[in-house]
């Protein structure tokens, strides 16, 4: 027992700065009600996704044609769709799909985009030219159109949707990272590392990369809204998730024709999209507002 | 009211309301600047000297608030005057200010000559103002004044820009010119030009100067009287040779020992560091770093003691000193 206590207190000692930073972030968050709303929505999304099998009242794929297009009731809180599937359960499982898309896209884009951006910014010259011209080419197209084109070329499926979205989004992160790198590399502490003999690779990884993280995180959070929108758009057009996957955009697409008489079929999934995008936008704004003075102080 | 005083600051208290807490930046400052004198307000980073200068023009920046105090100028308290009044009659007219980064302080879209004529436009016709502007530029030793008047601030060097600022700030024949670190960003050889210019001009225009700086050496060379500030308090005031030859406050003594001088072969620092003004030390704010601290220093704020004529210090040590 004594051992544990000393271990904890020595951990606290070594990380006292982070602990007080965390306290400050919590304090700043508390002061911004919109950020709390955004955070709550996002946390709710994640929790629902994790607990989906346990909290969803019915099987999302089970069809009950005898009960199709049923209006909201006690047994089906949000009604059923054109194949008799419980809409609430499908929305709940849809959070998993949405989250999966976001995670995959980020997992591809962040390392790729940030890495390319830092390399372009740090080394300059023809490396910079090549990377930035590639980025320009991708950025010249409106995202949805480009994603559609790639999705169509690869074939309609959820995985291909994720790849397509990832391809359209890396240039933004590269641009961001490059911009940050350009200003960071002129700072004296980088010169100090050079004077110490630190290798270029280590300078990039341990000195430049950590400083790009705040803008990247803000951008990524705000972008999550876009990811969901584009994925939904692609599914709506038939290029993304395929039935019976409970993807929100797909649900809106297939439910479209029932809008007048069985409004709940496309509306609730649409609402889910709205809440998710809203949540991420608020959270992103909040993170940006909080990180600005907090980090400026350290720089 | 002291008859000869041009500006009298009485019991000024200013707080800054920041996210970390309330910074008690100015802790009850009393200061007077006489007519026609060159007064140096000296202190290190964070002592409040710049804030004091801004307060004279009631220009304390956010999140600062003047909690109490008066600033008496020509019989009226600037702090209780109407804002419009202050703007019309005092700021840029009777009391003007030059700062550390002159190019940044000048309007980038106005030509240099126009910056000056703008200040004069109320008192005289445009033609007369333009003529006066050229005269002033000549007075501040700007070569080819007509050419410079036609240029823009970004085309000027630091030293020239500072001289244009001085010309602008003397155009309205102010009674007081506040100079906040005017030469800190300038090279030594240019600094000498600007300081000597200031001294000449002040004599000619019969104005007073409040020179705010961290550099005690330039104060020693240019000023008539000196005020030393530490952590929001004025700790010592006196004539220049009184302060240099007979410093009484332990902080002033410490400062002198930290400045290179040919006669002293060694520098001695002041141990410790400037206190956090969100939680300033109780009693005398200097006591944690003072070698002569006694119990009373930790409990009560020292009163200002008079030691010789014109020489005061805020320290319990000086209590037994000669008075008057």
């Amino acid at each position, binding site marked *: 027992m004594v051992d544990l206590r000393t271990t904890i207190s020595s951990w606290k000692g070594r990380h006292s700065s982070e602990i007080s930073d965390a306290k400050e972030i919590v304090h700043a968050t508390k002061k911004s009600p919109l950020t709390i709303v955004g955070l709550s929505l996002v946390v709710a999304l994640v929790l629902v996704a994790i607990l989906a099998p346990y909290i969803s009242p019915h099987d999302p794929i089970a069809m009950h044609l005898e009960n199709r297009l049923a209006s909201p009731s006690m047994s089906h809180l949000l009604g059923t769709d054109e194949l008799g599937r419980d809409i609430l359960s499908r929305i709940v499982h849809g959070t998993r799909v949405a989250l999966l898309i976001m995670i995959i896209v980020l997992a591809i884009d962040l390392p790729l985009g940030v890495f390319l951006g830092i390399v372009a910014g740090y080394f300059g010259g023809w490396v910079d030219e090549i990377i930035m011209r590639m980025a320009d080419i991708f950025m010249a197209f409106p995202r949805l159109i480009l994603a559609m084109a790639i999705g169509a070329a690869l074939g309609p499926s959820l995985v291909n949707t994720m790849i397509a979205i990832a391809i359209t989004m890396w240039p933004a992160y590269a641009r961001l990272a490059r911009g940050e790198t350009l200003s960071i590399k002129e700072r004296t502490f980088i010169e100090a590392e050079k004077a110490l003999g630190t290798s270029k690779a280590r300078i990039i990884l341990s000195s430049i990369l950590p400083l790009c993280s705040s803008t990247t995180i803000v951008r990524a959070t705000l972008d999550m809204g876009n990811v969901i929108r584009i994925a939904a758009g692609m599914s709506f057009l038939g290029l993304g998730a395929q039935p019976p996957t409970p993807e929100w955009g797909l649900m809106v697409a297939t439910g479209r024709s029932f809008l007048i008489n069985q409004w709940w079929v496309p509306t609730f999934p649409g609402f889910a999209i709205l809440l998710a995008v809203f949540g991420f936008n608020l959270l992103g704004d909040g993170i940006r507002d909080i990180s600005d003075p907090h980090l400026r102080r350290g720089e | 009211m002291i008859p000869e005083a041009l500006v009298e600051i009485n019991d000024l208290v200013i707080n800054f309301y920041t996210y970390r807490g309330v910074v008690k930046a100015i802790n009850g400052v009393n200061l007077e600047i006489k007519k026609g004198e060159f007064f140096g307000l000296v202190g290190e980073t964070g002592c409040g000297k710049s804030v004091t200068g801004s307060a004279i023009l009631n220009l304390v920046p956010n999140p600062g608030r003047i909690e109490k105090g008066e600033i008496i100028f020509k019989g009226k308290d600037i702090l209780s005057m109407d804002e419009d009044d202050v703007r019309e009659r005092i700021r840029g007219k009777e009391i003007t200010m030059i700062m550390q980064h002159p190019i940044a302080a000048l309007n980038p879209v106005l030509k240099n000559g126009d910056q000056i004529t703008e200040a004069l436009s109320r008192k005289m016709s445009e033609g007369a103002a333009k003529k006066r502007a050229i005269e002033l530029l000549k007075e501040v030793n700007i070569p080819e004044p007509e050419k410079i008047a036609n240029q823009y601030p970004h085309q000027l060097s630091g030293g020239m820009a500072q001289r244009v600022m001085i010309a602008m700030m003397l155009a309205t024949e102010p009674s007081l010119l506040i100079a906040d670190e005017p030469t800190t960003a300038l090279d030594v050889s240019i600094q000498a030009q600007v300081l000597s210019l200031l001294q000449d001009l002040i004599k000619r225009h019969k104005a007073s100067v409040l020179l705010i700086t961290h550099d005690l050496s330039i104060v020693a060379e240019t000023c008539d009287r000196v005020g030393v500030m530490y952590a929001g308090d004025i700790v010592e005031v006196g004539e220049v040779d009184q302060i240099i030859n007979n410093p009484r406050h332990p902080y002033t003594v410490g400062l002198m020992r930290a400045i290179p001088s040919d006669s002293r072969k060694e*520098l001695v620092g002041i141990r410790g560091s400037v206190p956090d003004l969100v939680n300033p030390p109780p009693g005398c704010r200097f006591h944690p770093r003072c070698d002569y601290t006694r119990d009373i220093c930790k409990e009560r704020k020292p009163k200002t003691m008079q030691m010789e004529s014109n020489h005061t210090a805020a320290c319990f040590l000086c209590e037994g000193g000669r008075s008057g």
Partner: protein
Amino acid sequence: MGEIVRLEHIKKHFPWKKRRYVKAIDGVSLLINKRDIFALAGESGSGKTTLGRVMLRLIDPTSGAIFYEGADITNIKTEKEIELRRKMQIVFQDPYSSLHPRKKIKAIIGSGLKTHHLVKSEKELVEKVEEFLNLVGMGKEHLYRYPHELSGGQRQRVAIARALILNPGFVVLDEPTSSLDVSVQAEVLNLLERLRENLNLTYLFITHDLSLARLFTEKIAVMYLGKMTEYGETEDIFKNPMHPYTKALVSVTPKLDPKERTKKIILKGEIPSPIDPPLGCGFHTRCIEKVGRICERESPQSKEMEEGHFVACHLY
């Protein structure tokens, strides 16, 4: 005592726009011996900051040669260059930007140890970092702090520890106390002096403050517009300045004690830009002791006037 750093005819011209150059350094030669405290003094545009970096090869010279302990290091690459980094170090002027804001003090000071494989374990690293923290007068409670939690003086001490932990022989101090308050400056300078004694270091002290140079250094080279105008023992230069620029600079340096003040030679005009420096002697546009046309045409050579006292001026 042997030589440690020698510069021969160093020039550094930075390209600027089309076919023009910033002539930051325009032909400087000097010699620094072991255990010297050598001042490099000058104002803006003098090239002193660039020269410090060229010595360390943080910037490569346009022409000329650099020698360390007699060996030519002008063009060495990679492993030899890394080895050099251990022997020649630098402390920068601004303690607020020379430390990485997101790294802890332990990582900042220990960075060099990792790069040069000077320690074999994390434990050894912490021990060594603690040792040097103590050496600069700070305690181990700072190991896990961030720079923004430290005062300016403390940050500068960390920067000193970072440089010295590699056990260099030569340290460039680039205006190490200009950004600090006077009371803190004194402590940092005293610390640097103590460390020089204990660790057998040679210092190049770059400064614009002549009073500091006089107090702290033994030899001084004064620079103006990329060239060296005067060089010699510090006391000598102050008591008997020969170059008109040095005379002016010494006279206008503010002095606390009125007895030390001399008649001020206030130079007229501005410091010319190093982009198009005046032909001949760069100082002739402001010189009150100008000899004549020769000052406008020919750049004066450096002559030894008395033992160890060199001046580059047509007066002599």
